[in-house]
């Protein structure tokens, strides 16, 4: 039982950074912008969060710094793609390249220093309930924040007027524009939000997951987050499922090795990626679901005529 509990806890922590980054990218993509720079924004978020924690010893400031850094990186992307209408795919790739390099540059001073870590929530009594207790009440605060964020985004997108406008901009920027909405402004805000979330995802890695900073510590998680958005057909509830599923595959393959299944480790390491592809294919087969939820203007630049 203890082993099961441990595995579930591990899966949830593995899913958290993915959940952060993916939920942010979902909002960005719902507004019609494809930002492939998630990996770069996460890296900068990770180093800035770590640096702030190191300098101030204040977890709240560290988390805020990670989010702010991600948002600033996203703003850079916003300027290039929304104001200068640069190609979104290429700009996103450039952002990843830039972010990985830049994070390494500013992170030089923080390599080899242990991080402060964040306290676990650990509500007395409740977290002592066997099995359910530690899993439901014993997570770190950022995991709860990620879940709150997912619920908040769902509520925002489908139950508020602002969310409706955001989706309208993503589905048909021309008519949204003619209805008098400022397409560029909405998109810029959505991009910044996406960046802030990616920054939080990066911050989670350097503050909680493995409290330390080293370059390239994001390890491709930004790309997985991008895949999760499509996997989820742009629906927040499915992002949560997807993140947990992906976390589970990547953790369970390690368990399979530890037990000794005799399959070369390279093939087990492929599993998360193959799962993503297969799930993507299965999801994509449901054309109606995709048609309803895919932002129709995804990746298209918009220049107001007047």
């Amino acid at each position: 039982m203890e082993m099961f509990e441990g595995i579930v806890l591990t899966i949830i922590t593995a899913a958290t950074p993915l959940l952060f980054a993916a939920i942010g990218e979902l909002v960005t993509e719902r507004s019609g912008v494809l930002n492939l720079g998630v990996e770069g924004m996460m890296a900068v978020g990770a180093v800035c969060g770590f640096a702030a924690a190191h300098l101030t010893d204040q977890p709240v400031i560290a988390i805020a710094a990670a989010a702010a850094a991600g948002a600033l990186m996203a703003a850079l992307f916003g300027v290039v793609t929304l104001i200068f209408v640069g190609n979104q795919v290429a700009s996103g790739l450039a952002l990843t390249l830039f972010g990985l390099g830049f994070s390494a540059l500013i992170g030089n001073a923080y390599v080899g220093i242990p991080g402060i870590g964040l306290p676990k929530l650990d509500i007395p009594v409740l977290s002592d309930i066997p099995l359910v207790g530690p899993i439901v009440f014993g997570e770190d605060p950022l995991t709860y924040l990620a879940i709150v964020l997912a619920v908040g985004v769902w509520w925002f997108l489908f139950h508020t007027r602002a969310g409706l406008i955001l989706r309208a901009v993503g589905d048909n920027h021309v008519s949204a524009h003619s209805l008098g909405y400022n397409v560029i402004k909405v998109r810029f805000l959505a991009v910044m939000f996406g960046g802030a979330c990616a920054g939080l995802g990066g911050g989670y890695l350097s503050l909680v997951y493995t409290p330390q900073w080293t370059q390239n510590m994001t390890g491709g998680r930004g790309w997985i987050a991008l895949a999760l958005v499509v996997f989820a057909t742009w629906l927040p509830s499915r992002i949560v499922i997807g993140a947990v599923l992906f976390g589970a595959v990547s953790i369970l393959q390690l368990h399979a090795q530890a037990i000794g299944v005799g399959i070369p480790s390279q093939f087990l390491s492929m599993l998360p990626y193959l799962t993503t592809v297969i799930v993507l294919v299965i999801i994509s087969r449901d054309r109606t679901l995709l048609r309803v939820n895919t932002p129709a203007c995804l990746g298209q630049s918009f220049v107001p005529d007047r």
Partner: protein
Amino acid sequence: MRKSFALAGAVLALGMMAGGANAADKVKACFVYVGPHNDGGWSQGHDTARLYAEEKLGDAVETAYVESIPEGPDAERAIERFARSGCNIIFTTSFGFMDPTIKVAKKFPDIKFEHATGFKTAENVTSYNARFYEGRYIIGQIAAKVSKNGVAGYIASFPIPEVVMGINAFMLGAQSVNPDFKIKVVWVNTWFDPGKEGDAAKALFDQGADVSVQHTDSPAPLQIAQERGLQGFGQAHDMIEFAPKAQLTAIEDHWGPYYVRRIQAVIDGTWKSQASWEGLKDGLVVMAPYTNMPAEVAEEAKATQAAIESGELHPFKGPIFKQDGTQVIGEGEALDDGTLLGMNWYVKGIDDQLPK
């Protein structure tokens, strides 16, 4: 076209003059790293050693490095650039730099090359490595003494002889204390990925291991051990800062003394090609302080270390059996270096299957 040739010629001549001037008073030692110089692991170990050599040799030496050089054609270019920029001795510090080093060395017979962890040498190319397995034998003994469950979790990088040798040495050490000791192995297919290494540590602990061993470079597994109230061993350098309560000891890479000797040999004109494989005795492999363990365990570890240093104990002394029970070597003998360097089989008692 002619003009640009002339320009190239002039620059080249200038470069050679600069090289000549260097040779007169200073030896230039150059280093090629596979990762960032401050990766917290392998490359940082070499960079620390570079600085150590600079400090020890003072004005007699000048150093330079290039970092994050991918193995392959890029390495050849980086090495050649060094060769042409007046370096007298070039250290290439990753296994994958072996063939590029040999290739470039052929073109520059007057420059000395030193390649780490490979097996090819030439007139002006030395290969060097450290006997890390000596340290692994000691930590195997410690693990068997401190583990309550009798199970260690081993986070391994890639199934190459160096790593397999390490797992075997660890197991032989552990078996010398507890013949029924078990290890669980996870191959993470990376030298450095804190997230993945940490995940592997969690998985191993969840499966009943209560002490972690790693042949990957990040302190993440130790951080997990500390968080869980368990213990583990550091790798490449002392990681006690990351896990003050969890680290038992660490196997540290100290290339510094070796670099000082080799650069000194160039200064003295006594440099000769060789295949160098030094260990605890020579100060290349250093054990971090034995902490977080009962005093008598620490004493025994020190005794083992002394026995290895004096040559009294060889970690791969016979009798040694493979997994299937075939005897590799009998009582009173030890495995030779050639067998160790190409090791691709597990010793008896390891349940894991070696990836083929």
